[in-house]
């Protein structure tokens, strides 16, 4: 099977999954015990008002019809109106998405940029002092909840040492750069405002670190295991016999086969980060989509909840497709395997 056809097939599988997800989320939101209209209007509203609001929301129609209505709205980019902020959910989410995306992106860079080198170092010095320290660090990263990291980092680097700020994305005295991508780090550079860039960078380091420590640990462990396995194989011994330097063996020969499994878990890890963003954004007052989602949940804002989860699920599926494609390009065996199935 050629590559484009394989990818198209994956795309369709993804779309089918997304339809499933939309049914699942819609199902969860509609089996709610209690009346969303009543919850939105509060206990002071009259029965008459509630009944009218139900009709306005379309809650009086049968479920399949409600779902059809919902999907047609979805296809027009309409996620309904938030029962809590009274603004269209799509607009609220569009406002929060770049902040969350920037956070997850920087956390992913940390994960790849720190986790993989640490894993290689640990595998090179297997069972040595460096390996033991790195393994212990990675384990602590994995078992500590992100919100505990957030609290600890805040205490040490902001309250105690006073190195880094913790008030949202920018200091109050700094105005955001003109919006192009919505990512302050990118926009500030595009606009040629280095002081804004530095300010945004100062603000994102702690939340991104809190968000990434678990996945740095995970990546380190996985890379270590795979590189260690590569080191045990004959072709590395062969390279050694040829007198190729240890550094070159590590970076060119041992790392490459180890990268593919790392790439595969990248997608899963981003899913975990999207979930943990809910916690980290809460601690740092990060004005992202996750914080909007938490508010929606606490205020029983059904449209807000459904919208947030759908956007996150869509984002996650897209990431997984990209990861899938990358793995397929890197490792032809997967394509051949798919052919056999």
């Amino acid at each position, binding site marked *: 099977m050629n590559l484009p056809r394989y990818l198209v097939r994956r795309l369709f599988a993804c779309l089918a999954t997304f339809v499933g997800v939309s049914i699942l989320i819609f199902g969860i939101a509609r089996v709610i015990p209690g009346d969303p209209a009543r919850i939105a209007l509060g206990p002071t509203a009259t029965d008459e008002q509630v009944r009218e609001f139900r009709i306005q929301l379309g809650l009086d129609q049968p479920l399949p019809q409600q779902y059809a209505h919902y999907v047609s709205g979805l296809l027009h980019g309409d996620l309904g109106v938030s029962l809590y902020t009274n603004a269209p959910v799509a607009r609220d989410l569009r406002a929060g998405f770049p902040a969350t995306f920037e956070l997850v992106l920087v956390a992913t860079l940390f994960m790849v940029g720190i986790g993989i080198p640490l894993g290689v170092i640990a595998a090179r010095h297997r069972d040595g002092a460096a390996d033991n320290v790195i393994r212990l660090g990675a384990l602590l990263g994995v078992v500590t909840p992100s*919100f505990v990291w957030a609290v600890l980092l805040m205490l040490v680097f902001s309250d105690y040492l006073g190195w880094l700020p913790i008030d949202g994305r920018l200091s109050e005295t700094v105005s955001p750069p003109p919006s192009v991508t919505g990512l302050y780090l990118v926009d500030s550079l595009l606009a040629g405002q280095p002081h804004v860039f530095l300010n945004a960078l100062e603000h994102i380091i702690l939340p991104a670190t809190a968000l990434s420590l678990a996945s740095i640990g995970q990546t380190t462990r996985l890379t270590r295991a795979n590189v260690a396995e590569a080191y045990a194989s004959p072709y590395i011994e062969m390279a050694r016999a040829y007198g190729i330097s240890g550094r070159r063996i590590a970076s060119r020969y041992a790392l490459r086969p180890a990268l593919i499994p790392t790439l595969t878990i990248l997608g899963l890890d981003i899913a975990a980060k999207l*979930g943990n963003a809910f916690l980290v954004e809460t601690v740092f007052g990060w004005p992202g989509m996750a914080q909007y*989602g938490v508010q929606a949940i606490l205020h*029983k804002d059904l449209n807000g909840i459904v919208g947030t*989860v759908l956007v996150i699920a869509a984002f996650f599926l897209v990431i997984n497709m990209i990861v899938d494609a990358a793995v397929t390009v890197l490792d032809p065996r997967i394509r051949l395997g798919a052919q056999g199935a």
Partner: protein
Amino acid sequence: MSPRRMNPARISLRRLLHNRHWYRFSRNSLSLVGLLMVLTITLAALFAPWVAPYPGNAGPGVDFAHASQPPSRAHWFGTDISGRDELSRVIFGYRVSLSVGVIVLAIAVPIGVVVGLLAGYYRDWVEMVLMRVTDVFLSVPPLVLALAILGVLAPSLRNAMLAIAAMWWPWYARLIFNITRTLTGQGYVVAAKVLGASDAHILFVEILPNCMASLLTKITLDIGFVILTAASLGFLGLGVQAPTPELGSMVAEGAQNLPDLWWMSVFPGLGILVAVLGFNLLGDGLRDLMDVEV
């Protein structure tokens, strides 16, 4: 020879208890540390009213005369803004954490196992339907799915456990599906089939016991991660409601009093870490011992 006698699974269960294996397990000091941590936490939780230094000041009981005290000899972890002893609250908090870990898996594992067995054994449309549904669940980030479910249900411990179980079973379905698929073609399964064994017999007596090593290892590892997830929900205010002590909500409460009352969030946070770490080390030890993938 009956199919039962041919079953290699009996060996793998016995392996666990075999002295030689206990020796190998105990040679790995990290696994022993994990076992010790798990035992300590479990015993402390079970006997919380006797172990906690101030059992009366762990839940609703307040003591404003001793409010907001930093860690001291009398209060090792300090006290919170209502003068409750943080160490006692952490110990009682473990009761909630451990029960959530056990109950969630008691719901999620059987569902996942049955789905995985059926999908892996019958293949065809059964596999397609069941594994598609599993994929749908797996394609929403786990914590987000639990949050969505809690968003529509009232926040309470029971609902938090249901939400976590709803996001957890697909991982077991996946695991058991993969194992079942490989085992179905094995000689002893075919032999059982030829001898006229029923499907139920093959699934639960021939195949399931061979999943046990992987299953037990994964359950051990997962108790830690379920505790972590439950604490995350508690942190957002979506789990146990006050005044029952729960580690995640204690961290959240403490976070509102940062940096002055740092002990209010740091010690419950470390409490979560110790629990997750313990089950992780123990699970890793079991994995090495039984040589399984999870």
